[in-house]
């Protein structure tokens, strides 16, 4: 038998990118389940639609780029983008909104930059941010938790944006929205004038806890390291706590900040995106902390209901700079001057 000439190592632990992606997809399932429990079939329909679109667009653009289709299509990265988008979009988003978001994510944010591994911005967040700016009304249509549509009604809404059965006035602002748009009133006043707020907050909390569970599973099987999510949650919690201590009537508490909106989904599924985040452990800490602080600032003073898309895109932008300043001290180098060239004599 002909003897091959290969470079070391000749061993491999046989891990695969597609398996990592599969774990990420599986870890979103608790969140998906809880979200569907509170808001109905919308997220599920969106998820299937987004997945089909993502695979379709991925195959199309791979074909246009003359890249092998099967290996890239089966690496699962397009599905992860689709899942994240579908989970982040409101459950009541119509078909075209998802289409625009997926198209922009896969074709523009991912492949025009060179495809998997080369995109500087998180594709899902680019698609999300685009829709948020272009279609702010559709992007903030969160139904009240008490509104339950049958699958048929939801399906009808998804394609035609109307509900047969004549239910109206069932979408409303999210808890985060409410907290913002009622500045001048204390949170207690808002809560008392909006009995739905409490319900919304409760739903939001359960959803966030479900994503936290999924994220902890990923952490346990070492799909990513703890640095970025912990830094993000810590910095967001710290800012929220600090301001809440100062003016509890105006600023929600740390626990409210951490368990509303897309906090946990972002912390464990988006901030941890290795392609667009910082590289080293120290860099990941800086990256996560930056996202947390930006989220707090945009939530408190910005004009958008949730802040993750923008916070993450801004930090994606800074990731190369963070990398430059957070190189780890390699073995045998002096701890105090890791960038010094002098020790090379």
């Amino acid at each position, binding site marked *: 038998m002909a003897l091959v000439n290969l470079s070391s190592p000749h*061993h491999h632990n046989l891990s695969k990118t597609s398996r990592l992606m599969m774990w990420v997809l599986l870890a979103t399932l608790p969140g998906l389940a809880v979200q569907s429990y509170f808001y109905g079939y919308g997220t599920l329909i969106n998820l299937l639609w987004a997945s089909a679109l993502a695979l379709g667009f991925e195959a199309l653009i791979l074909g246009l780029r003359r890249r092998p289709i099967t290996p890239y299509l089966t690496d699962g990265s397009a599905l992860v983008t689709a899942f994240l988008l579908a989970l982040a979009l409101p459950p009541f988003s119509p078909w075209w909104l998802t289409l625009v978001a997926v198209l922009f994510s896969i074709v523009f944010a991912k492949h025009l930059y060179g495809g998997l591994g080369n995109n500087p911005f998180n594709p899902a967040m680019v698609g999300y941010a685009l829709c948020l700016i272009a279609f702010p009304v559709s992007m903030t249509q969160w139904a009240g938790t008490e509104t339950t549509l049958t699958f048929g009604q939801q399906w009808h809404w998804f394609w035609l944006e109307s509900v047969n059965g004549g239910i109206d006035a069932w979408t409303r602002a999210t808890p985060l929205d409410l907290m913002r748009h009622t500045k001048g009133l204390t949170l207690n006043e808002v809560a008392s004038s909006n009995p739905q707020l409490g319900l919304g907050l409760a739903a939001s909390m359960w959803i966030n806890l479900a994503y936290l569970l999924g994220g902890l599973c990923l952490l346990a099987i070492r799909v990513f390291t703890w640095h970025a999510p912990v830094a993000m949650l810590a910095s967001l919690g710290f800012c929220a706590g600090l301001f809440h201590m100062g003016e509890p009537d105006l600023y929600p508490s740390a626990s409210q900040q951490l368990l509303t909106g897309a906090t946990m989904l972002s912390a464990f599924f988006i901030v941890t995106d290795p392609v667009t*985040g910082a590289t080293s452990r120290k860099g990941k800490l800086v990256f996560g902390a930056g996202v947390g602080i930006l989220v707090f600032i945009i939530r408190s003073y910005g004009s958008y209901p949730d802040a993750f898309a923008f916070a993450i895109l801004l930090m994606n932008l800074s990731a190369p700079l963070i990398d430059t300043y957070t190189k780890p001290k390699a073995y045998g180098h002096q701890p105090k001057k890791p960038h010094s060239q002098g020790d090379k004599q």
Partner: protein
Amino acid sequence: MHKIWNFHGGVHPNENKTQSNQLPIVVMPTPKQLVLPLSQHIGKAAKAIVERGDYVLKGQLIASAQGFVSANIHAPSSGYVSALVERTLPHQSALSGPCIVIDTDGKDQWVELNPATNPESLSKQELLNLVHAAGITGMGGASFPSAVKLQLKSDIHTLIINAAECEPYITADDRLMREYADQIIAGIRLLQQLLGQPQCLIGIEDNKPEAIAALRLALSHNMDQHTNIEVCVIPTKYPSGGEKQLVEILTGHQVPHGGIPANIGIVCQNVGTAKAIFDAIIKGQPLIKRITTVTGKAAANAGNYEVLIGTQVEDLLAFAKVDLTRTSRLVMGGPMMGFTIQDTQTPLVKGTNCILAAADLELAPVADHHACIRCGQCEVACPADLLPQQLFWFAKAEEFEKAQDHNLSDCIECGACAWVCPSQIPLVQYYRYAKGRVKSINSEARLAELARQRFETREQRLVDEKSAKEEKRKIRAVAAAAAQAAKRAANPTEEDPIAAALARVNKQKQEQQTAAAPKSPEEAYKELKTAAAITRTKLKKTSTALANAKAKDHELEASLQQTVDQLTVKAEAALAELKAYEAKLGLDPEKEKTLLVAVAKTNAAIRKLEKTLATAEDPQALEKDITEAKAAHQIATQSLADHQAKPASAQES
């Protein structure tokens, strides 16, 4: 218990050690042929001191170390040197290099050995000399000459014996420790003696309980003596046997970047080296054999073999009953850092610790690699605490400066990053490529710098020489001017010598012209003809030059045009003069030409007729024709002679 530290990163590949560590070491019989590369160590190749046809004894020096970093090579068995040739070297590149080939005679006859009778009394230098003479190199794989490593200026407080054997599959050190623990301890004591009695830490992974027990037993035998040797059991983790990693595990200190363990008072030696030092000093035997593991699913008799250095791989594989038809990948060394060989005649050398004859699918298949998603698994695994994903990126983009800035040179090529990479990227290959390029770029830069310096020195020298010349010239000129002035001052009436010389030349010319003797008409005619021809040629040449100048739009065009005009006039004048003279002499060159042609024609006619006469059927008729032609020829000749005679007669008249 000695405290154990941890190092960053590391991986846990399947150990696969039980395939080969169950049976005692088997001594392989002397093969028919031994191939000894002159370069089987780091540093300069040894120089052969035997010739083809020489008979050598076992243990006889056959190649001597050259320079500081080099090692002696000895004959592993007795026999005849059959060749000094280039053979495939045990290296990834499969390049050839000079080797001594010995055809063994089966007698295995030793050269006279000189074991140390009283080793305790040997001085450091004596021990060092013995280690050097025995040709001992690091037995762990890198093959650095041990005598060089032990020849230290700085004080050593710790001797680390590397018994980690962290590579999967390899069990050579494991078996060695189980079977030769006493000799290893004795070798370590010699090393301590050589290094000034530092403490000794034996670093051994906890997956070798039998070896640990054997070492501890051997140490307890030595309890009567004062020993400061400790067996330190460390957790099994690849690559804890890397020198730098082992130093950190056992001492908590890191070897400084670009330095060696001796910089922090530590010396590392492989456990096999300790045994080789024992053999060299106590038994007097040079390094001619070692323990090599043969393993892999294609090996029916996987195990450890005591082999002579220079044994060819195929002989060992045949002895270990390796089915070569079952293996597609033959790895020399372990699966993490070893290299594949294709030539089964490659010899085993001092550093060969393992031959892994892997069956298909036993090792990682060659997979198409995917895009790097910067998942960071490699960073978690890297024992040098580098950012492998960034290094990969820089190597791929050929951004070698950035790669260096990210400490490419600290990569020990252990392969942990590539082992964990979910995209299955051959990362180590990228780093080796980048290192190679950095090396060649640096050497090119060095050469360019040297060339620049040489060039600048030369330029400077030329400028210096020129200015020195100029200086001398100036001095001479000043001196000459001074001398001239002095002369003139001494003799003011003397005229300018140049003007005088010119005047002399002109005078001579005039004299020549006036003194010219009256010419004969023939001579005058000839002179005129020559003058006309010369002006014609000159005109032609200048016209060509003018045409060229015009074509190239040359600056000389105008002056050339002027010359041409002048020459045209001159040529016409010369021609007119000639014509006038011809008229005066009554010459008619045209007529002369026609006459000459007539003579030639008649002559040719005669020749032709005479030729046909030889084969003619009617010679009579031809004969007549010839006579007529001859008459015509005579007339033509006569008229030509008359014509040519004219000038003379013309002058006479």
